[in-house]
């Protein structure tokens, strides 16, 4: 186990440097020659566009790898608790910021082609700076982990419930984000646009789910060799049973709230319902498992 965590720490350490350098490269081109960097007029692709595309791919992979690494760290180490909590939060925000970057690039290109003033560049820069902050903090975190790995025998510290708890927190974040996004779309975006192009929203919904999906996949990865009966202990099963019932009850008034809005397309019921259930189930599971007994 020590060798594996050391190897992953080393790879991610190099990855964090590459990610930071990639961000510097993108920021330099976006701020020195925006038209060329984001290929506003959809001209032929040049080497710079492939490099910028590759840089984005590397940054995305770094984020996914780093988030899974933080789960592993939570499971194996009790140390650096505050730093990794901040990192997990920042990692999720930074991952969402990558979606924002895509929207802003499209929006800037559209405004530029129509000759309108470009107002989104500072948002784009802010999103890249969020990515940079995550890469930098991850770099520092990995430096501290190197020291930790050198002195500790990791096998004695298996704490599976951390992943269970983290998955609930990420479920809450995904639930809230998905719900707010759906309500924003229903309330503020023109009905005609949503009716015709609701499918363009699906990548955003997938993006909201990525951190939760990573936690759940990691959890299943850990449990794959165990019998299904051993996946959860008896208190966890009882708490999930209670939270299922709570979710069932609360989903009725939760869904009734949707009657306050005019739904532009029936598909929005599904999005709303899915994220509502996710929010209710994750928050009630967390409440029954962790909070109820401590108060």
């Amino acid at each position, binding site marked *: 186990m020590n060798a594996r965590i050391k190897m992953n720490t080393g790879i991610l350490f190099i990855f964090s440097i590459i990610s930071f350098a990639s961000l510097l490269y993108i920021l330099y081109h976006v701020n020195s020659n925006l038209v060329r960097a984001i290929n506003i007029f959809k001209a032929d692709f040049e080497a710079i566009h492939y490099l910028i595309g590759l840089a984005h791919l590397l940054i995305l992979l770094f984020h996914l790898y780093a988030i899974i690494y933080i789960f592993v760290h939570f499971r194996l180490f009790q140390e650096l608790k505050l730093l990794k909590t901040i990192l997990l939060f920042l990692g999720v925000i930074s991952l969402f910021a990558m979606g924002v970057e895509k929207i802003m690039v499209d929006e800037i290109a559209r405004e530029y082609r129509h000759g309108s003033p470009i107002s989104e560049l500072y948002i784009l820069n802010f999103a890249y700076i969020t990515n940079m902050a995550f890469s930098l903090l991850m770099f520092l975190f990995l430096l501290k982990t190197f020291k930790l790995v050198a002195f500790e025998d990791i096998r004695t510290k*298996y704490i*599976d*419930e951390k992943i*269970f708890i983290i998955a609930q927190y990420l479920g809450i974040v995904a639930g809230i984000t998905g719900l707010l996004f759906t309500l924003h779309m229903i309330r503020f975006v023109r009905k005609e646009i949503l009716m015709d192009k609701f499918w363009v929203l699906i990548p955003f919904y997938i993006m909201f789910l990525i951190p939760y999906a990573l936690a759940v996949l990691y959890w299943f990865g850990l449990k794959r060799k165990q019998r299904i009966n*051993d996946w959860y202990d*008896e*208190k966890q099963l009882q708490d999930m049973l209670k939270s299922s019932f709570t979710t069932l009850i609360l989903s009725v008034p939760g869904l009734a709230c949707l009657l306050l809005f005019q739904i532009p397309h029936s598909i929005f019921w599904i999005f709303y319902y899915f994220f509502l259930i996710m929010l209710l189930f994750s928050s009630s599971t967390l409440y029954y498992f*962790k909070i*109820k*007994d401590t108060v």
Partner: protein
Amino acid sequence: MKLGNTIRRCRFDRDEMSQQELANAVGVTRQTIFSIEKGKFIPSALLALKIARFFNKSFEEVFFIVDDLQD
């Protein structure tokens, strides 16, 4: 009527072993041990027996019924 227990005392007698160590030994989460100790969660017979066996004690030495009047 509640299920009381002496798990805290048993852990203390075992060189102040942590809840996590006990949880690992009987195959549950730390949170479950915490809730049992506080009397907020009633374990199954199997888990209760596992805990008692871990401390080399009989079931009644670790778990007991707390009547409402005592409560």
